[in-house]
C-alpha cells in the first residue's frame, strides 16, 4: 500500500506552523487518490510536547524523532533524520508545506532519497500508481501537469490551495523513533524575529498591501490593517527599499497569499506580484493610474490617491461596527 509521509513544522517558538495542517489535508487527499495511508513526522530537540496535537487529523501514525542536535532547524541535520524514517516506512510520497523551511529542506531530503521533486504543488490528479502533480511555472502564468518517475516522490505544497485538515478524526498512534544524527558543517548562529502583533501574512483573512506608491510611508496601510484585523503585505519594490521587512513581500519570489480580502494600494500589479495574490477571494486596488495592470485582476478598483482613500476607507469601515 502506498505510504504518504507529511513532515510537520514547528515554529521557533515551538508551536506547529498552521500550514502543516494544510499539508496534512493535502496528504490525506493524496493518500485517498493513491489508495494509500497517511503518516506524519515531526523531528526536533523535544517535539513530543506538540506531537500529541497532530493525533486527530486522519493519519495512521505520527512519528516523533527527538535528538538534542536537532534543536535548531538545519537542512543538513533534518534531512538525514527524516530520510531514515522515510526509508524505514518505505514511504512512496514525502511532502511538506512550501514554507521557507519546506523549500530549504525538501530538495536536500529528495537528493538523499534519490527522488525527483515537485515544488509548490497545487493539486493531485489521476489515481493509483499514476498520481500526477499540478504546479505553477513562470510566475503562475502556466500550470504544468508533472509526473515524477523515481520510486520515491517528493513535493512541497502550496498551503493556500488545500483546506486544512480538521481535527477529531480518531487518534493516530504516536510512535517514537531514533533519528539518524549526522555531524553538520553548518552552525546555527541566530534568528532575528520580526515581531508583529498583526496576524501572519499567509494565514490572515484580510491582507492590506502597499507598493512603491506609498513612498515608504506605511502609516495608513498599517492603520487600515489594524482596523480590519489584517496582515500587512508589500511589493518587492518596497522590501528592496528597506521600508518594510523582507518577509512581507508578496509574489512569485515571496509569499503566496489567498485571503478573503486583499487590498493593494500603490501597487502597479506586475506579473510577479500577481503570482502571489491572484487567488485571493476579493481583490481591491487603489491606484492613481487608471491603466495600472492591477485593475485587471481587481474586483473593485478606485482610481485615486491612496493617501486620501486609505483614511477615508478606515473611517467608513469604522461606521459599519
Amino acid at each position, binding site marked *: 500500500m502506498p505510504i504518504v509521509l507529511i513532515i510537520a513544522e514547528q515554529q521557533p517558538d515551538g508551536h506547529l506552523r498552521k500550514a502543516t495542517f494544510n499539508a496534512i489535508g493535502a496528504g490525506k487527499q493524496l493518500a485517498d487518490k493513491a489508495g494509500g495511508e497517511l503518516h506524519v513526522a515531526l523531528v526536533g530537540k523535544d517535539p513530543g510536547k506538540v506531537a500529541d496535537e497532530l493525533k486527530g487529523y486522519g493519519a495512521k501514525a505520527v512519528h516523533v524523532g527527538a535528538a538534542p542536535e536537532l534543536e535548531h532547524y538545519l537542512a543538513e541535520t533534518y534531512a538525514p533524520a527524516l530520510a531514515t524514517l522515510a526509508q524505514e516506512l518505505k514511504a512512496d510520497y514525502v511532502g511538506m508545506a512550501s514554507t521557507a523551511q519546506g523549500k530549504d529542506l525538501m530538495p536536500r531530503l529528495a537528493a538523499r532519497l534519490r527522488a525527483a521533486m515537485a515544488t509548490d504543488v497545487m493539486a493531485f490528479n489521476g489515481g493509483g500508481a499514476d498520481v500526477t502533480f499540478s504546479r505553477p511555472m513562470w510566475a503562475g502564468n502556466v500550470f504544468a501537469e508533472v509526473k515524477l*518517475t523515481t520510486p520515491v516522490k517528493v513535493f512541497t505544497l502550496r498551503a493556500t490551495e488545500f483546506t486544512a485538515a480538521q481535527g477529531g478524526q480518531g487518534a493516530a498512534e504516536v510512535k517514537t523513533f531514533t533519528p539518524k544524527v549526522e555531524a553538520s558543517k553548518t552552525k546555527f548562529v541566530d534568528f532575528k524575529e520580526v515581531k508583529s502583533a498583526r496576524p501572519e501574512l499567509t494565514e490572515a483573512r484580510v491582507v492590506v498591501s502597499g507598493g512603491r506608491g506609498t513612498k515608504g510611508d506605511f502609516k495608513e496601510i498599517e492603520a487600515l490593517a489594524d482596523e480590519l484585523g489584517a496582515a500587512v503585505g508589500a511589493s518587492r519594490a518596497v522590501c528592496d527599499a*528597506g521600508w518594510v521587512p523582507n518577509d512581507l513581500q508578496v509574489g512569485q519570489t515571496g509569499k503566496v497569499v489567498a485571503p*478573503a480580502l486583499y487590498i493593494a494600494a500603490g501597487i502597479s500589479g506586475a506579473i510577479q506580484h500577481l503570482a502571489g495574490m491572484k487567488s485571493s*477571494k*476579493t481583490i481591491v486596488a487603489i491606484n492613481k493610474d487608471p491603466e495600472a495592470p492591477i485593475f485587471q485582476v481587481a474586483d473593485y*478598483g478606485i482610481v485615486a490617491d491612496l493617501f486620501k482613500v486609505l483614511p477615508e476607507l478606515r473611517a467608513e469601515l469604522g461606521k459599519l461596527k
Partner: protein
Amino acid sequence: MKILVTAKRVEDPESKIKVKPDGSGIVQEGLKYKINPFDEIGVEEGLRLVAKHQGEVVVVSIGGKEVQEQLRHALAMGAHRAVWVNHTGPLDQLGIAGLLQKVVEKEKPDMVILGKQSIDDDQNQVGQYLAEFLGWGQATFASKVESLESEQEKNKVPALVVGADGKTVRVVREVDNGLATLECQLPAIVTTDLRLNQPRYASLPGIMKAKSKPIEELTPAKLGVDVTPAIQVLKMSAPPARKAGIKVADVPALVEKLHNEAKVV
C-alpha cells in the same frame, strides 16, 4: 578564493508567457532571454567576494549553444572564465545537480553560488540537491541586514562574510518571520535571494573584454552523468483567468460593495 557561479538562461521576466494551444509548451516567438535574475545576483556577489579576498569567479551554464550569451553576460560583468555544459533537451534537478557536482569536483571551488530559484520553472531545488550530493553545508535564500539603499550596498561590500581564517562563511538568510544567520564551513553552497545585492551593469570595456575570455565546453557524456529526466511535464495549461471587476466612484461605494456584494467586511 575560487567562486563558482551558475547561470541559467531564462525568459526575460518582462515577457508575456503564453501556453501553446496543444499544451506542449510555451509560445517561443517574440520572447527575449536573459540570465536568471537570481544568478545575476550570484555573479555580483562572487565579484564582490573576489574583489575583497582575491581569486576568481568561474561561471557555469548548462544548455544548448545559446546559453553562451548568458555566459558572455556574466563574463562582461567581470567573471573570469566560463564553463559550458553543452546539452539540449529537458533536464531535471537530479540531472542538473549531477552535472554541477562533476564540474565542482573538477574545479574545486571554495563556494558555489546559485540562484534560489529559476524564474521559469520556479522549482527552487538545484542548490539544495547539489549540497547533498557534495556533502557540503548549505545556506539558501542569502540576503543581508542592510537594505539595497544602504552605504554598504553603494560601496559594493559583499554580504557574505568570510571568516578571518578563510575557512567559514556567515550568511544571513530570508526565512519566515525574520532573518536567520548561519555559519557554514567552506566549501559551501549558497543560494541567492533578491536583497543580497543590486547587480552591476556590464560596462562597454567589460563587454569587449568578455569576447576574449575563455569558455570551456563540456558535455554530460564527458562528465559521465546520465541525465535522463525523472520528471515528465505531461501538459501545460493557462491558469483560470480572473474576471476584471469594476471601478467604483468613491470610498462609500467601495465599502457598500465590500459589505453587501462581496460580504467580506
